[in-house]
């Protein structure tokens, strides 16, 4: 694709069909309800440790989740519950993992920051900023080498654009024309600090794109139709040999950085303005305005509400992991043996 074609593809994208739009709404509601439930379970001390919720950022995960091919790869960060869920990963297994239960996705060995389900193409959540960016390039290189047509999608925050792995990965992906889509979720804060205070350019993703010969593009990350359109365009570009993309998607997290952070450093009016642009609420209203029957929307809401209730119930009833697994699966033979 030549310069500006991703932006043009988004601008010219037809409104998705109703089935797709309902799928986008379903994924967003699933993410929203699961994250809210995770928050509630924290408050009940049923989830320990830390957790980084993505309430308010659901449209990004949903747009890609619906647009991606089943065998595509996702790499995400510790704020990765949503990106994992939208690949078709079991909600029970995700909540179970957050709660440290036997039924957890990783049987309690990973926790909130390391969700992964290889069978679903969810290639992991990584908690060292930027580390997963070259790994996504590697998966894309593997797909290119095997001529499998798969694409790797890598989600990261605005703060990641200031770490070295960001630069190395984008240059590497660009010179090898790798089928990888880098998605910078700019929620305006790197942890507790405004990204603008610690970044030399106003747009942390887009303003760096030209350094790698990539199209600078900024899209509304709170608009599920836009996210779907840009995901389709970037995935198609990658799949057809057009190489990597770097998308800056603007969004906002409704809560703090992590469980420990109430997010008080953010001005009240800023929070209120972004909450008025809640991606789930906006999309619900848009579907109604476009003539979707309210009964269909309510059915999705009831279905997802029942899903999260059932997931919580199953996870709560699941016991702690067997202590027998604590020293297993370091090596491919299942052991952790280092001597004879």
């Amino acid at each position, binding site marked *: 694709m030549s310069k500006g074609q991703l932006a043009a593809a988004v601008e010219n994208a037809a409104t998705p069909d109703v089935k797709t739009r309902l799928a986008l709404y379903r994924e967003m509601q699933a993410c929203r309800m699961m994250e809210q439930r995770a928050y509630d379970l924290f408050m009940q001390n049923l989830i320990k440790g830390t957790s980084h919720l993505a309430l308010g950022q659901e449209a990004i995960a949903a747009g890609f989740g619906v647009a991606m091919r089943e065998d595509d790869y996702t790499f995400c960060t510790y704020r990765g519950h949503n990106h994992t869920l939208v690949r078709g990963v079991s909600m029970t297994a995700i909540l179970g993992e957050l709660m440290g239960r036997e039924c957890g996705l*990783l049987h309690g060995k990973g926790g909130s920051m390391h969700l992964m389900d*290889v069978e679903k193409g969810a290639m992991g959540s990584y908690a060292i900023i930027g580390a997963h960016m070259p790994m996504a390039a590697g998966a894309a290189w593997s797909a290119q080498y095997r001529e499998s047509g798969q694409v790797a999608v890598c989600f990261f925050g605005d703060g990641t654009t200031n770490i070295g792995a960001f630069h190395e990965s984008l240059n590497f992906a660009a010179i090898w024309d790798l089928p990888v889509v880098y998605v910078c979720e700019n929620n305006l804060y790197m942890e507790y600090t405004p990204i603008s205070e610690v970044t030399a350019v106003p747009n942390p993703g887009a303003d760096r794109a030209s350094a790698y010969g990539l199209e600078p593009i900024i899209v509304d990350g709170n608009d599920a139709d836009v996210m779907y359109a840009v995901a389709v365009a970037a995935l198609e570009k990658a799949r057809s040999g057009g190489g990597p993309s770097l998308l800056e998607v603007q969004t906002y997290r409704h809560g703090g950085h992590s469980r420990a952070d109430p997010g008080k450093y953010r001005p009240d009016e800023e929070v209120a303005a972004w909450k008025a642009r809640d991606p789930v609420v906006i999309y619900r209203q848009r579907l109604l305005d476009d003539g979707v029957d309210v009964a269909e929307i309510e059915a999705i809401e009831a279905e997802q509400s029942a899903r999260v209730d059932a997931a919580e119930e199953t996870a709560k009833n699941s016991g702690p992991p067997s202590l027998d697994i604590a020293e297993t699966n370091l090596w491919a033979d299942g052991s952790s043996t280092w001597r004879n």
Partner: protein
Amino acid sequence: MAQLSYREAVGAAIAQEMRRDNSVVFIGEDIAAAGGVFKATLGLQEEFGNRRVRDTPISEQAIIGAVAGAAMTGLKPIAEIMFSDFFAVCWDIVVNQIAKTRFMTDGQCSFPLVIRSANGGGSRFGAQHSQSVENWAMAVPGLKVVAPSSPADVKGLLAAAIQDPDPVLFFEQKSLYGIKGEVPDGDYVDQLGKAKVLREGSDVTIVALAAMVRHAMKAADTLQNDHGISAEVIDVRSLVPLDTTTIFESVSKTSRLVTVEENPRLCGWGAEISSLVAEELFWDLEGPIVRVTTPHIPLPSADALEDSVLPSPKKIVDAVVKLAD
């Protein structure tokens, strides 16, 4: 048997495995068109093409991240980190991503990859291109750690490392690239986790790795000829998995242990072996366990200085004679 140099054995092992398995690929800085700064990978790009043997930018995080992602998704990649000191710039990917992810996900994925690197001193390169860092790797759960001392071991152990389903850090001692030795003809694959008794003896066990093995063998000659001390020399070859059986059998027989390490003193691999022997073979010992190491310093550059601080045959002889007194 063919005579190959240590550096030729590197290329021979990679070529052997690339012919056998199309999922083996190899990337690194200057490894393809130039054949490597140590010329250990000459000719591989000609034989296997740019798709499988590929030059990268100076981007160690990208290189190691890329082989991690490729290993998770069906390839068996090999990466070169030109000098092992440079592991420091990509250590996160090695220890936090590659080493931990299989465990964290309770076995959902594996990392069948090899990272080769030129390790160790003796080449007058100064502190940032000379350190022996195999002990860094040994301290990380989830990494296998191999360091060959001969061309035959380079070929057999590198082939085994490439076939291994787990991540292997393969430390080539850069001062050994020029040495020659007999290497078995045809496909040759050794086994990780097996130490080798290179010389049998009855009075003391000397355990060494990589370049230190040659020093230990020379010291054993001197000990026999000048002091009448019969030294058994063991080449550890693989720190993880560690062949404690071979080491313990020897120490049970000789009752004395000297380890010879090139890494700086603190937390070197010899300390771990000493601790294991002290804990499990204490009553078989007739004297203290002695470690010969580089002092706890970065390596200096000038030949006289570098030689004065690295372990040498004379230092090993002195340590053993003192122990046997």
